[in-house]
């Protein structure tokens, strides 16, 4: 290949490169605006997606907080406060009755009960517990009206304090 041919070839290559650059520039100028708007839209979508992702994470965390629930165990502890002049033998019987009343709460979510303690209070409100006379004669037949005093959770263990007041029987003439 002689020198003039080589120069000719080089010129063609350079002209091709110039053409390439010119074409690229022309395409860039023609479609640049569209590309820009697409990039803008993409960034906007990234941002919105990120926002949604953060929101989902927050909601998941919130949901997990409510879902990592512990459930109320069988061993519901009941403390009964009786009037001082009342026989303390009624305590056990009242305790058993109250534990029966609280059975629907066993296995329920601790969070649910602690968030809505009024449900428990409503169940207890103005409830009359009838205590029959036992065979030993240690307790005579009486009725007690109970009222919820305190309610607490020790882990999954529900512990409640109840005030029991004797309800006077209506005498029939």
């Amino acid at each position, binding site marked *: 290949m002689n020198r003039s041919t080589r120069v000719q070839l080089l010129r063609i290559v350079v002209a091709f490169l110039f053409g390439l650059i010119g074409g690229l520039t022309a395409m860039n100028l023609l479609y640049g605006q569209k590309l820009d708007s697409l*990039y803008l839209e993409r960034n906007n979508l990234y941002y919105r997606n990120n926002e949604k992702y953060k929101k989902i994470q927050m909601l998941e965390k919130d949901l997990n907080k409510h879902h990592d629930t512990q459930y109320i165990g069988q061993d519901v502890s009941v403390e009964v406060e009786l009037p001082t002049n009342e026989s303390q033998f009624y305590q056990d019987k009242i305790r058993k009755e109250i534990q029966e009343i609280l059975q629907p709460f066993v296995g329920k979510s601790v969070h649910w009960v602690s968030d809505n303690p009024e449900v428990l209070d409503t169940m207890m409100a103005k409830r009359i517990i009838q205590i029959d006379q036992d065979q030993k004669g240690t307790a005579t037949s009486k009725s007690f009206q109970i009222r919820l005093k305190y309610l607490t959770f020790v882990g999954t263990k529900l512990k409640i304090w109840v005030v029991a007041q004797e309800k006077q029987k209506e005498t029939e003439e």
Partner: protein
Amino acid sequence: MGEFWSTTVLNYCIALGVVLGGTLLGGIGAFFGNEPPMDTMLRMSEHLKIWALVAALGGTFDTIKSFEVHILGGEMSQVFQQLIFILSAFFGAHFGTVLIRWFIQGDL
């Protein structure tokens, strides 16, 4: 055309070419680099302005040195000429930036 005017026009065109060429090729680079080309070109045209000025004048040091020589030599017309060169380069670079801005944003 005298040497003064030819140098003035040359400076103007060099500065304009640096801004336009740099910006247009930078736009191609931005396209291949996954960046918005028009936005990159707009920013680049602003950044290239000062470099276009420097390139047209052939380096700031030479110009400053010629200032020093001519001022100390008492040749104030030469100093004035240098100022015209700088101004022509500046207007060339500025015109390039304005053209790019007009092309991309649609207003001056």
